[in-house]
Each structure stands twice: as C-alpha cells, then as structure tokens.
C-alpha cells in the first residue's frame, strides 16, 4: 500500500501553487465577516497548520477550499480549478481529490465501518449505492486495506456508533484515503478526543499524508501540537491572516501571539466592564432585605 504514485506527481506542474486564495472575503447572510481579504498560496507537499482563536475563521477558510462555502469576494483556486465559481460538476471533481476530516467525524452511526469507508469511493462511482454489496468487489477489498492501515480491520463489520472517538476518527481517515486524495484537510481532527487518542490520530493522519505525498492543512487549537510537525504555520484572527511563517524558525511564544493579542483586546473591555461591577454592588442590600 505504501507504493507512491508517480503518475499523480507527474500531473502536478511544479511551479503553480496547488491551492491559492486571492483577496478572499466571506460575509455570512447574518452579517458576520468570517474571512477578510485573505491571500494564501500553498504549494504541493506542504504541511500547513492553521491556528487561531475560536471564531477566527479557520473552519470557514477550510470550507472554501472544497466549495462547501463560496466567497463573497476574491478567488479560490484549487488544482487549477477556480472553486469559487466552479459548476457543481467541476466542484465534485475537485472534492474527489480532497480528503476532509471533521471534528465530529461525520460517520453514519448505524452503518458498519466498512460501509462508512466505502462511501469514500462514491465520487468514483456513478449512481447511488446502499449497503456493502452494492459496491464493486475491488473497492470492498480496497476498503479493507484502508481499515487495515488505520488499524481497525477487526472492526470492519462493527457498527460505527459502537466505536470510541479515536477509532471513529480513524475510520473517517480511512474513508478519506478511499478517495486517494492529493490534498488532506483536517478541521480540528482531535478537538473532541482525549490526549492519548489525539496523539494517535494526528500521528496516523500525518504518516499517511506523508506516505501518499499529500498536501495537508490541519487546524489545531494546541500550538505545541502544530509546531511539532507542520512546515508552515498560518495564524488567523477575525478572518485575517496575522501570522504566516516557516514552522522551523517559529518559536512557541511567537505563535502564541496570535492568541495573546486577542487577550490584550479582551483586557481592555474588562476595564470598561467596571460599571457592571457597580451594578452588582447592591447585592448585599438585597440580602439584607431577606
């Protein structure tokens, strides 16, 4: 399985970035400006970690890369296709090459692990499928291989909702592998896992990504985790890129800036917040009345 795929590398035309965002902004219908004029180029083979506070727009950015969201301004190009204006058909083509791992796994709980992995092959097939038997034998065998790779072959015929969180995420990774993707996006893949399974899942994700020579973008909350493996760190705040550096030269304190500066912002309102303290002062009075 560890065979690298030279043909796929040949497809790449080296100089062009695999992913490029030019002046991308996203305003949701409710008025939230989630991305604010983002420019970003990601070459093939890069291991990039996206960091930032909750609400800074990390998930929104990731969703623009496979067309789950469309920008209100700017251009998103992935593998030569302009995702931001692609037709549904083109979009499906791009998505087939992008593995997307979600924080909430996105497995169908009542289906077996094997079935869940098989859904990763739907993009290659035409027409809807239901149940293991509706997929070609070759694909079933492939799904077995991927489950083996994530160490869950023994659970192949077990229902997905009987697994632990870490196991579920590994099944989700196997499903992405089924796509044979060139790009792997992972949006907080370990946020709902305990530290031990987090390490295991992140390890697995990076190992397969490197073996398959994928381009990887992972959003993470823990800076130390990000620094461990990424080759590039991008920090977002309020939908803007506020940090973009080579991970090897970046110290943890620098990375923490992304969070810290927001903390400073928070510090100011807390001064203004004093009136609310005054408001709570009559409390003893109220007590006395009782």
């Amino acid at each position, binding site marked *: 399985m560890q065979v690298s795929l030279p043909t796929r590398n040949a497809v790449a035309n080296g100089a062009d970035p695999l992913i490029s965002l030019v002046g991308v902004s996203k305003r949701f219908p409710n008025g939230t400006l989630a991305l604010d004029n983002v420019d970003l180029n990601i070459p093939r083979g890069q291991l990039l970690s996206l960091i930032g506070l909750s609400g800074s727009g990390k998930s929104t950015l990731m969703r623009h890369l*496979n067309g*789950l969201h469309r920008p209100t301004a700017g251009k998103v190009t992935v593998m030569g296709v302009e995702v931001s204006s692609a037709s549904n058909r083109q*979009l*499906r*083509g*791009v*998505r*087939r*090459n*992008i*593995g*997307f791992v*979600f924080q*909430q*796994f*996105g*497995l*169908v*709980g*009542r*289906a*077996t692990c*094997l079935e869940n992995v098989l*859904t*990763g092959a*739907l*993009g290659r*097939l035409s*027409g*809807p*499928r*239901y149940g*293991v*038997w509706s997929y070609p*034998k070759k694909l*079933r*065998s492939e799904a*077995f291989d991927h489950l083996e790779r994530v160490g869950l*072959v*023994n659970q*192949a*015929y*077990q*229902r997905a909702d009987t697994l632990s969180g870490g196991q579920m995420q590994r099944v*989700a990774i196997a*499903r*992405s592998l*089924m*796509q044979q993707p060139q790009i792997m996006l992972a949006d907080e893949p370990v946020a709902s896992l305990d530290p031990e399974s987090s390490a295991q899942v992140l390890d697995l994700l990076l190992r397969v990504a490197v073996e398959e020579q994928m381009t990887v973008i992972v959003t993470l909350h823990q800076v130390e985790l990000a620094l461990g493996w990424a080759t590039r760190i991008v920090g977002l705040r309020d939908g803007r890129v506020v940090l973009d550096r080579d991970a090897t030269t970046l110290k943890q304190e620098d990375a923490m800036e992304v969070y810290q500066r927001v903390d400073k912002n928070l510090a100011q309102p807390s001064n203004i917040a004093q009136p609310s303290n005054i408001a709570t002062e009559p409390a003893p009075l109220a007590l006395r009345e009782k």
Partner: protein
Amino acid sequence: MSGAHVEPLMQSRVARPVAPKNWRHPTLLAIFIGIVAATTWSWLYLDMTLLTLFGGLSDLGNLLAYMFPPIWDNFPEALRATIETIWMALIGTTLAVTLSIPLAFLAARNTTPHPIVFAVARAVITLTRAIPTLVLAAVFSISLGIGPFPGIIALGLHSIGMIGKLFTEAIENTDYAPREAVLSTGTGKWQTILSTIVPQISPSCIGTALYRLDINLRESAVLGFVGAGGVGFLIQTELRGIDYQRAISAVSVIFVTITLIEIVSTRLRASIIGDHLSMPKKLNARSQARVARDQRLINTAISTRRLTPPWVYERVLRTTAAATFVALLIAALITIEMPLLSAYKYGDDLVRSIGRLFPPNFTFAREEIIVGMLETTAIGFTATLLGLVLAIPFGILSARNIIIRRAVVSAARGILLLIRGLPELIVAVLFVAAMGLGPVPGTLALSLGTATFMAKLIGDALEEVQESPREGVSATGASRVQEFFSAVVPQALPNLVSQTLYMLDVNLRSSTVLGIVGGGGIGFLLLGSIRVLDEATVGAIIITIFVLVYAIELLGSFVRWMVE
C-alpha cells in the same frame, strides 16, 4: 433516577410545580374558554344527560344478550373477509409508504430541491390527511365500483398524510455531519442522501409504517360500510338484518385479529426503534450465546477477508422480516387480484371521479350541510370530553410509577388493549344497533375509542415525569395523593393538554364519517349524496369537512407550539 445526581437545594427548587411560562397568555386563555364553551354547547345540542349514558349502557347489555348463544355457521365467511381486510391494509399501507418516500424528500426542508416543490409536497401531505379514508373510499367507489380497490386506494392516499408527515420529520431530524462529510468526498446529491440520510431514517420509518399498518387494519375493517371490501360489509349486513347471533363471529374474528396484530407490531416496533437487536439489554444465556456466535462469524469473515457482511443475528432477522413482508405482499396482491398492470386505467377513473366533485354546489343541500356540520362538531367535542373523563382513571391506573401493584397496572392495560381491539366505527355500529339511529350512539362509540387512546397517553405521560420533584415533595412528608397532585400532575399537564387537542382533532375527523353507519353528523348526508350521485354536493361537503378539520389542526398546532 436523575434525581440522584441533583443537589438537595436544586431539588427543592425544581420541586415547585412549574407551569410553562406562557400558560396564562391571553390568547391561550381565550382558546381554552372557547373550547369549554363549545363543549358545553355540544353537550346541550346533543341533549346529552347522564340518563342517556346509562340508558345506552343497558341497551348495549341487551344487544350483547341477543348475541348469545352465537351461531357460528358463517365463521368461514368471517375468516375470509377478515383475511381480505388484512390484505387490504397491507397493500394500502405499502402503497402509502411507496408514495410517501419521494414526497417526504421533496417536503423536507433539508432535501427539497426547490421552495415551490416544498410547498406543493407539504400541501399534498396535509390535504390527504384531512379527508377521512371512508369518505375517499365512498367517493372512489363511484367510479371504481364496489370491492376492495377503492378501499385500498383510499387507505393508500389518506395514509400519506400521516406517513408522509412523519417521514418528513425523520428526514429533517437527521444529523448533518455525515452528509457534509460524504458530500465533501465529491458525491452527487442523491448519492449522499442514500448513503447518509436513508440509514439514519430507516428504523423510524419502518416503525411508522408498522404503526400505520395497525391503524389501517382498523380502518379497512370498516371500509365495507361503504362497499369498499373487507369484513365491514358482513358485520353491517348482519347487524342491520338483526341477525345478532351470527354477527358475533365476524366481530370476534376481527377483534382477535386486530388485538393480535397490535401486540406483534408493538413488539416489533419496540425492537426496531429501541435497537435491542444489536445490543440486548439483559445478557441472559441465550443472548450471550447469540453475541458469541455473532462474534465468531465476524472474526471468520475478517480473517478470511470476506467481502460480504457475515450473517449475524441482526442481519438474519432483518432479512427474514423483509422476506416475510414481500411474501405477504405477494400473497395479498394475488388474493385481492390487484390489477397492477391496468393501474393507469384506474388512475384515470380516479382523477375523473375527483374531477366530478367540481364545481362544488353548496346551495342545493345548504340546510342539511349546516345541520350536519353542527352535529358533527357537537359529537366531536362531546366525545372528547366523555373520553377524557373515562380515560383519566384508566390512565392513572396504568402508570407503573404511580400504581405500585403490578396486577392493577396489568389489568388496566389489558382492558385498554381489549377495547382498542374493536375499531370505533364497529363499536358505533353496535351502539346504533342497540340504541337506534342518532348522534348519541355515535358519540358514545367515539368516546370509548378516545378513552382507550387517551388513557394510554396519560399513562405514558405520567411515566415520563421526572422523579426529582416527587422526591422533593414526598421528602416534606406529603401523602401519596398530595404528592401526585402537586408534583406529578403539573409536569404531565402540558403534554396532556396538547394530546387532548390532538384527540379533539381526531374525533372531529372521525365524527364526519359516523353518519355513514347512522351515528349522526354530516356522514349521513355525504353517503346519501354519493348514493344518488349528487357529486356537486359531495364536493361541497368534502370541502366543508376539510376546512373544519384543517382549522382544528391549525388551532391544535398553535396551542401545542405555545404550551410546549
């Protein structure tokens, strides 16, 4: 149970009977006053007195006495007619499920292709629900002739109202995460839906279908009253012909059948929805052996890299169930001689028979329509009141967490199950036979049906109340009765209020067809107009029924929305 984790302080706070915030909202209050006024008016309009009620009971006693000793010589005929009834219910329900599946995907907010399609699909679902099966069957029999087809099609169309609605809700309640994840792999819309939504909804949809099958069995038992096949025709002829000693065989066969099927279907539904198929709650020796066998099968499948799922218990069960269903359906289609191949011709007839209802003529039978609708409304309200009064003691007696003696609970539940075994309209026929034509026997029949349904709901609602307030109240030294009124009732009340409204809604629908068996209300005029082929008046009546039923449904959902 959850009370164990609640801190003492919290408990005493929760323990205060909490009424919903907008309980005292003026609009809600006005609606309640309106309902009380309408009920009082209904009671007076029907000339109901306690004496009529007890008189009715003694008449019924006399009727039952006439039935003995039963003569069983028509038993084979009763059996044949009952089997036809079952087949009709099965085909009708299957038809409804088949039509409801695409409709539900078009009507669910999260799968609909277009807002206009959404609105049309919703309208179809609501429309089919508002016209009672018996009315549809009567109308269809004009063009399709006497026999089971109009009945089956009526069952199929009317059931869309409930099945489609519940399927739509099931689709809307699915988790979006798997759908988004699979969509991200580059799939098309229908690929995604089949792979992620269908597995999520299938258990609840099968549950819904089984539940509807139960209801449709009762419905198809009375379709014979309008000549639309099944055992109803036999029952009616025998009772009309004062052949009481023979009537009992048909009545008892359908009664036993309905009761048995209800027991089986309740079990089946519990096991499908409750998921104990895959994870048995109690691991007794048998289920332990089963789990071990499943594990062995799975292990072999994996070590040999079998590419088809192993035959674990759940899969065997599911496949057996599916095969049984298909076999029964085929048997049904063959026995009934469904003209599947010439269905298009019948479709044409159907459309024409609906078309003939237009333009409706409200003026020709204006007086009768008004009187009929007033009587129907009065029956609906009175039956709900009487049913509720009857249901409260039974409901309390059947709640396991209130009544400690298991024997009492089982007895109460047993009686409820037995009464449920006879469809309301058959009870109505019995009451009409005993007491003569008129709205009173119809009202009594409906209230009996209401009572069993409400008693079950009350029992369930009471069993769902939280334990902590009860503990809080009994910790203050309250008696069991005090505890019941101050801690249990307030919790169950909002649910009961909305269920009562639902019952009112159901009863108004049912009372529109009571007249077909001489039980009062608009149904009498409806059947009469169908018999004389006055289709314009039929159209007018159906539209009037639709408006009434739809208004009550809107009112009900408004109150539920405010109360819950």
